[in-house]
């Protein structure tokens, strides 16, 4: 927006030109000192030597990353082989986050489509209904889910009473429970961007497809899904990224058997493990994956914009 002419629209005005440094200073200070600097420091910490009972000795070592990737036997004197414990936890986290994303899409896409095709004055109400749960405390939502699906909980009581099952499902402390928790936590994140994309969708495309004898499901697959793809990708990232590092759902619904990255990191700082450099290293690896996903996304978006502009 080249909006330097007087009276031009918002967005690109330069009315207070020269005040930018003063206005940006508080943001730079707060986020720079209390987030950027700590993240860099965490990177340094991941290369320090651990001291027992938490804390570090300021001498550089690769021990934390060595512990993550390599297995050197119980006494550390065997030839190194790949350590599967932590890679396994990462794999489970990626799998769970991916499954949660897929599940959110399967339920979220039809919902977003349904809402976006209502009369304009009704859309706000439907959207409001979908967003309210997001504003409820995540801890409380996760606890509610735990309460609902426990073996003694209302879900099992109802299914037993109605005769669908004759013994409790035993959902709690399984991967399925964690998946349900993640799905429930981040479902609105999938609905909203897809909704925004469908709202901009040009229905003339559907008409054209119908004129060319495509049935509605073919139209959905070949015309609609590609057209609203940016919304789907945005939704997928908004669900996948927080799911990957989630702590509450795996901790409260999964227990020890459904351990995920979030719990692995937490344990190094708050739990019995007390290995700060290792915790920092795991956090660094998680952040690298997330930043990688976001970078690929940003690149793809820039390319798409360049194509549209051309």
């Amino acid at each position, binding site marked *: 927006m080249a909006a330097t002419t007087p009276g031009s629209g918002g967005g690109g005005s330069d009315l207070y030109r020269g005040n930018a440094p003063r206005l940006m200073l508080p943001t730079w200070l707060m986020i720079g000192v209390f987030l950027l600097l700590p993240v860099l420091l965490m990177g340094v910490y991941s290369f320090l030597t651990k001291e027992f009972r938490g804390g570090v000795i300021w001498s550089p070592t690769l021990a934390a990353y060595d512990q993550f990737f390599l297995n050197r036997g119980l006494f550390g004197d065997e030839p190194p082989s790949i350590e599967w414990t932590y890679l396994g936890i990462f794999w489970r986290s990626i799998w769970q986050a991916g499954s949660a994303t897929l599940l959110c899409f399967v339920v979220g896409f039809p919902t977003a489509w349904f809402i976006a095709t209502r009369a304009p004055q009704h859309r706000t109400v439907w959207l409001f209904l979908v967003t309210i749960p997001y504003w409820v405390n995540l801890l409380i939502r996760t606890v509610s889910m735990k*309460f609902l699906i426990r073996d003694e909980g209302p879900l099992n009581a109802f299914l037993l009473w109605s005769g669908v099952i004759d013994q409790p499902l035993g959902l709690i402390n399984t991967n399925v429970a964690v998946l349900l928790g993640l799905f429930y936590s981040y479902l609105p994140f999938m609905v909203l961007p897809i909704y925004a994309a469908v709202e901009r969708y040009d229905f003339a495309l559907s008409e054209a497809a119908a004129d060319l004898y495509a049935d509605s499901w073919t139209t959905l697959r070949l015309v609609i899904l590609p057209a609203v793809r940016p919304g789907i990708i945005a939704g997928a990232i908004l669900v996948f990224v927080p799911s990957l590092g989630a702590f509450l759902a795996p901790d409260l619904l999964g227990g020890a058997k459904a351990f995920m990255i979030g719990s692995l990191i937490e344990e190094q700082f*708050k739990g019995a493990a007390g290995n700060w450099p290792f915790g920092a290293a795991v956090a660094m690896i998680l952040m690298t994956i997330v930043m990688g996903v976001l970078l690929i996304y940003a690149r793809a978006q820039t390319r798409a914009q360049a194509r549209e502009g051309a």
Partner: protein
Amino acid sequence: MMARAGTDLRRFTGFFPMTLLCLLVLYAPLMVVAVYSFNASTSITLWGGFSLDWYHDVFIGPEAPKFRQATINSLVVASLAGLAATLIATAAAVAMHRTGGFRGKTASFALINLPLMVPEVVTAVASLIFFTVIGFSGGIGTILLAHITFCIPFAYLPVAARLSTLPDGYEQAAMDLYATPWQSFRLVLLPLMAPGIMSGFLLAFIISLDDFLITNFVKGAGVETLPTAIFGAVKQGIKPNIMAISTLMLAISVVFVALSWLIGRNGKIKS
């Protein structure tokens, strides 16, 4: 849309049931907890009739002082963090939308969004390490600093959205009539931005109130906010008083969202 008589191109079989399923998933757990919070039975599974005992317990039961202190801490932190983050974000939004191009604009934008991109558990770990290294012991102070930081992008979003829809003609007019830039900002732009600023504050407030993970890392021993107190209690099993507290927080959240929505709508009508 008129091309095929009798078929609606916007309709897909099964999408409406899926929408209902979506709402069921979103609401069922909350509804169940809200209903059971009024359960007279001490067993949290069997229904023993309607009662307000657990609400009574929340306010004057044996655990009441603990939860009262945690609530006060949460509200103090959320108010102060919301206020500080909104002030900082408003200044940043004016810089991004009213000062033209400046050196480091792209970097500034990335920095504002950094708290959204770094996974929460990473922020928690990094903050804990940072506060340990500089020798800040955990307490309300460290919680507050961490909360202000991660609330900035949430406060920024509504403020910047509002600002980007406002043409600068009103301020131009004010300056033509010999208002100083500060006067035109304070007397013209600020009132026009008010709905965005209010939404930004409410959003930051809710986000601060919602946080468990980062708070749990930086809070230090003995200091609790409502989510960390609830988490601690839940670890010992879900008791009915937790459901009563949850229902109260649910009600507060709904009121806040409704408020924020109404303010946003009023802002749109006025402009």
